[in-house]
């Protein structure tokens, strides 16, 4: 039995709209895979290389020069597909997808039946291989490769006919037929939400050849990924058997909610909790002392929202939630270390630095409740998210569609003022200064409040007196 891929009808129109009389458009197929079935949520054309865009800065390093030379708004022939550019696109798009969703493959729109030509097929296969490699090599925490099977959809812009095939990347690399279905009715999605609290201290050992800050962050990421991987996912307070359908929990919840209060307005999302087992695996209770040069505390709340197709099992859901958390943390940390201009380790003096990786915002896809993520640095606004949405996903959205309050920005004052017991001597002046500022502020507020109250009192007395007279 081959694969069946379900896509919603509007996506057909999208493919048709990309048609060029003398050229090709390549793009990514995004969605969720469930055994022999795939559910497509979105198709995103790969932006043309070398245009003024937000992508440019981050992509420029990894694209080779010759590909940049072929800068055009579209591709003249299949052999001109900028493979690495498409692979990079896949990597950036993966960061925006919720856990449990991946780049399922590529589509190609052109004025012919592209897959009839073996050279074309070869080129597209190489593209898929490149995507696969990019997402596994050094980027495993983005969780971009959930399976080895990738899809190719070829859309003939003249006949409007389409052919779908799939290949097993690490196996035979042979094209096999797949059944692509455009359907009228929308796929139903279960929505899962989790709020993950981080508060962990990581020690940085004093070393003659210290690791770079980027490497330290990577180590933290690996450690968090392991922790999340080991955790137990509890959906609506239930553990459930891995093979049970997620639907059973969803239904039960709906019923109990209906009896209790109908005014409940949260859009039927399932609340997910994460628990880490504390097994007695390590019986060693020795205290290990390491001489350290720094510490990094990871603290804050990561908001996770995942979507599972209607037939998903509890195991699928559990994996998707874990992927979402790790992918989201990996995405923002990577964006953060890429944004660091100078290597922090250069300055030897003792200090406190607050690193604020970009925070997650969510944008709902049109005509679906599935949300994609973008990450905003402090100071950036929702328009930045719209820009990357346009560039990477070929989506035009309104600023109002950006849910920008899912995660909040930290107050840096809190961290610099923190009266750390360990460096009282070093930071006491800073700390007291901050405290003084706060107290001055408080007094001002207090006095303002008091004077307003006083004015009201005087007014009241006056009015009263006037009335009496």
């Amino acid at each position, binding site marked *: 039995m081959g694969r069946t891929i379900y896509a919603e009808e509007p996506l057909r129109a999208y493919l048709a709209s990309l048609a060029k009389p003398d050229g090709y458009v390549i793009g990514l197929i995004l969605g969720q895979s469930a055994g022999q079935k795939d559910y497509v949520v979105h198709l995103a054309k790969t932006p043309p290389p070398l245009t003024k865009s937000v992508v440019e800065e981050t992509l420029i390093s990894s694209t080779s020069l010759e590909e940049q030379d072929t800068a055009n708004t579209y591709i003249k022939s299949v052999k001109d597909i900028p493979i690495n550019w498409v692979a990079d696109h896949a990597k950036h798009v993966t960061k925006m997808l919720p856990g449990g969703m991946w780049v399922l493959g590529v589509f190609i729109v052109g004025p012919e039946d592209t897959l009839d030509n073996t050279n074309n097929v070869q080129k597209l296969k190489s593209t898929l291989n490149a995507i696969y490699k990019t997402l596994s090599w050094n980027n495993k925490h983005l969780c971009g490769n959930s399976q080895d099977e990738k899809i190719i959809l070829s859309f003939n812009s003249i006949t409007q006919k389409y052919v779908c095939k799939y290949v097993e990347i690490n196996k035979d690399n042979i094209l096999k037929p797949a059944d692509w279905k455009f359907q009228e009715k929308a796929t139903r999605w279960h929505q899962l939400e989790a709020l993950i609290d981080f508060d962990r201290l990581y020690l940085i050992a004093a070393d003659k050849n210290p690791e770079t800050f980027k490497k330290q962050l990577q180590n933290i990421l690996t450690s968090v990924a392991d922790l999340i991987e080991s*955790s137990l996912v509890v959906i609506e307070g239930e553990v459930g058997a891995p093979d049970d359908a997620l639907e059973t929990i969803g239904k039960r919840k709906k019923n109990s909610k209906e009896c209790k209060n109908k005014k409940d307005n949260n859009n039927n999302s399932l609340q997910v909790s994460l628990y880490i087992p504390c097994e007695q695996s390590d019986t060693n209770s020795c205290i290990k002392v*390491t001489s350290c040069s720094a510490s990094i505390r990871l603290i804050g709340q990561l908001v996770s929202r995942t979507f599972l197709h209607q037939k998903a099992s509890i195991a699928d859901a559990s994996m998707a939630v874990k992927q979402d958390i790790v992918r989201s943390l990996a995405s923002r940390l990577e964006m953060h270390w890429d944004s660091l201009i100078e290597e922090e380790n250069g300055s030897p003096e003792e200090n406190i630095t607050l690193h604020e990786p970009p925070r997650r915002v969510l944008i709902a896809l049109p005509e679906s409740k599935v949300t994609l993520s973008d990450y905003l640095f402090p100071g950036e606004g929702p328009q930045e998210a719209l820009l990357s949405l346009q560039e990477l996903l070929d989506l035009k959205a309104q600023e109002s569609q950006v849910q920008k309050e899912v*995660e909040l920005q930290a107050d840096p004052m809190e961290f610099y003022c923190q009266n750390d017991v360990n460096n009282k001597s070093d930071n006491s002046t800073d700390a007291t200064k901050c405290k003084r500022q706060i107290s001055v502020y408080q007094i001002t507020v207090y006095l303002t409040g008091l004077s307003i109250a006083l004015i009201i009192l005087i007014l009241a007395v006056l009015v009263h007196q006037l009335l009496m007279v």
Partner: protein
Amino acid sequence: MALQLQILSNILQRLECTETTATGYLYGILHNNTLVVLTFTLNSDESESENIIDYTTLQLNLPADIYFCGILHIGECEEVNPDIFKDIDITDNPLFLKYSQNTLDMQAYFYVHQKLEAVNYFNIISEDDLSQQFVYIKSQATFPLIAQDGNILEALQESRKNIASGKIGIHFPLNNVYLFRTDESLKDRLLKDFLSLSKEHDKSSTGSNNINHIIGLVDIIHANILLKISSEKNSEESIKYAPVLQHIKQSFDGLECNVHINALSLVSLNATSAELHAIVVESICRNIRLIEMQQGLQSKNIKLSAKLPEVMHFKPRSCGHLFTIVFSDGSTNDNTMEYRKALHKALALDLTKPSFRRGNAIQFNIQANEILVNPHQALLHKGVAGKLSIVDGLYSYHHYMQNNFDDNGWGCAYRSLQTIISWFRLQGYTEIPIPSHRKIQQCLVDIGDKPSAFIGSKQWIGSTEVSFVLQTLLNIDIKILCASSGEEMSALIPQLICHFDTQGTPIMIGGGVLAHTILGVSYDESSGEGKFLILDPHYTGTEHLPTIINKGWCGWKTRDFWRKDAFYNMCLPQRPIIF
């Protein structure tokens, strides 16, 4: 409805041994409008030992949900000061117990509306009654602790606060159920249904091991703890901002270690799941508090000690309940003596038997096919009449072929000796490991009893050699008792009764070519018949209790068991008077 009162019978027994006048504190569980008083502590007159034990924090050593619940007066004391009732948190109506040594009479009062109201009726319950109503739960967790510059205490406090906020899940491997605080559907389910305990719990006496773990006669349900790393929607307590990294550059000593939580709760079978969750949380907090307190003492002495303090559980038999102590790393029976002495006094335990030595600690992690402890418990009252005088405490059953060592046909006396040494170990008198056959032979060579060729041989030993080894390895006294024939054994029953009632150690008996262990005697005055409880070291099978009981490898034997033509020597180890 008026508060009901139940008092554990062990309290009365302990009270009988106390001084004529004393004051103390009572500890108990309040559940279902019933106050079950489980234990008491005595105030000490000596001011110096008051530093060692703080009577109000002593409840940390007790399983959760046992709380300080009242005041005890023995004999004629000054009138009770109502201020002290203010420290009692679990009930608005604290208990006041008055006990008189002369009349052995106990009077109970509840402090209601600032007046003492006499309790007309209260129940004295046995340990068995207690286990029908309550069950012990042992919660285990290991989590990493990271601290800067020796601030282990702070890190411990931090994790305790986190757990106290209820952010844990509990997994019961027994029937693979999870309990979370937010479980609304399970909130009102009773513990006995939740863990499907009710019926099996009653009839577990002959070792259906998958239900209960009977070790040292404590039924325990195991639980594993999970730490919650997520928040609920709209919860107030959590941090609201997106993850950030606070990078502090400074040199310091980083400390990493694993905290091992091993916490006990005593929970009513009728407790709801929500109550159960809260009690387990409390038990873990008590555990961490004890670790904190011990670590606090520890770090005063040495700046960085190599290990975190270690949690141990004890069950002093006269108390009838479990007791948790956290010993510092590297503590020995010698350097804990002061503390143990104070503890004995506080709990009104005499100073003639060890109760809180390391060896007294309950071993919970007994695996399948491990050496059995006290197999005779399964048949204690079966087929015997009259007064029983039985070995006092725990021993393990050593017999042929154990530890992959083939001693079939010659090692019976060695095995009987091992059983005796196991008794001294489990009673806390010694920490030496159970000696192998070779070690035993080495010992006999070392003291000059045997030539060096004896080591590694398959030669038998008899009760004299067993005595020598016990004297040498344990530094104890031995009494030897002889019977010129098997028939004479009956005549020795009074002496054996005396041995078991005063010493309570297992006896090794050698006669002809066979050695056995005597665990007790019964004597029926009306018929004049006596029986011997025998543990047979010649058993070669696996550690399977039903086989051992049914085939009589451990069982009551009549005097015909002894051969008429054999001469018997008995080795009666004497219990040292130490604590």
